[in-house]
């Protein structure tokens, strides 16, 4: 399940919905990304997507990750538009029989979202705005799964 949302969402409700009623799943891993206020200063984030394309690209990567890691299920909820500090940006959920697969699947999906998913992130700070591009760390992180 891939969802782009322009309003704040409830990570706990999503986690519960995702994990409820599972009797063959032993492990659910979630990653919740929050908008930080950099060095105590309020920085507004803005996330842009390419509606339709973004969801289908993410869905294709999620399907590949489900196969690769033997996941029973995976979900991505990603905020778009302006995001105030402290609010959720992204929630990635993975379900697997055992913990290693659930951890690795979630980790890999986050590396993908940080460096290859069709999403563009702008930071609005006191000293102006800038588009965020993948860091050297992000680019080496995604290489771990090559």
């Amino acid at each position: 399940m891939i969802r782009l949302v322009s309003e704040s969402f409830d990570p706990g409700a999503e986690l519960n919905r995702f994990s409820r009623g599972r009797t063959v799943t032993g492990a659910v891993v979630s990653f919740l990304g929050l908008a930080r206020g950099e060095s105590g200063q309020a920085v507004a984030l803005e996330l842009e997507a390419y509606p339709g394309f973004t969801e289908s690209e993410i869905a294709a990567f999620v399907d590949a990750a489900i196969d690769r890691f033997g996941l029973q299920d995976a979900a991505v909820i990603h905020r778009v538009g302006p995001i105030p500090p402290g609010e959720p940006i992204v929630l990635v959920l993975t379900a697997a029989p055992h913990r290693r697969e659930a951890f690795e699947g979630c980790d890999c999906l986050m590396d993908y979202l940080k460096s290859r998913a069709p999403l563009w992130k702008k930071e609005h700070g006191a000293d102006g705005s800038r588009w965020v591009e993948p860091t050297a760390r992000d680019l080496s992180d995604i290489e771990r799964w090559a």
Partner: protein
Amino acid sequence: MTPVVRVLLFGRLRDVAGWRERIYRPAPESLSALRAMIATEDAALAAALESPGVRAAVDQVLAQGDAVLRSGAEVAFMPPMSGG
């Protein structure tokens, strides 16, 4: 009806161009013809489109190299991505 192509810009490309979406009429016949058309009117944008990591999609499918554009095609130019 004159063939048209709709062009979408994302991320910093939008800031370079000063627009987000534009109709090109008459439509260029290929992705390279579209790039050439852009170069004649906005050198800075044309340079930005050639910079590392910029990808193009035609009708929501990533275009490898050149691509033919049907009338009504949607072309998106996308700089390096960063979500999460």
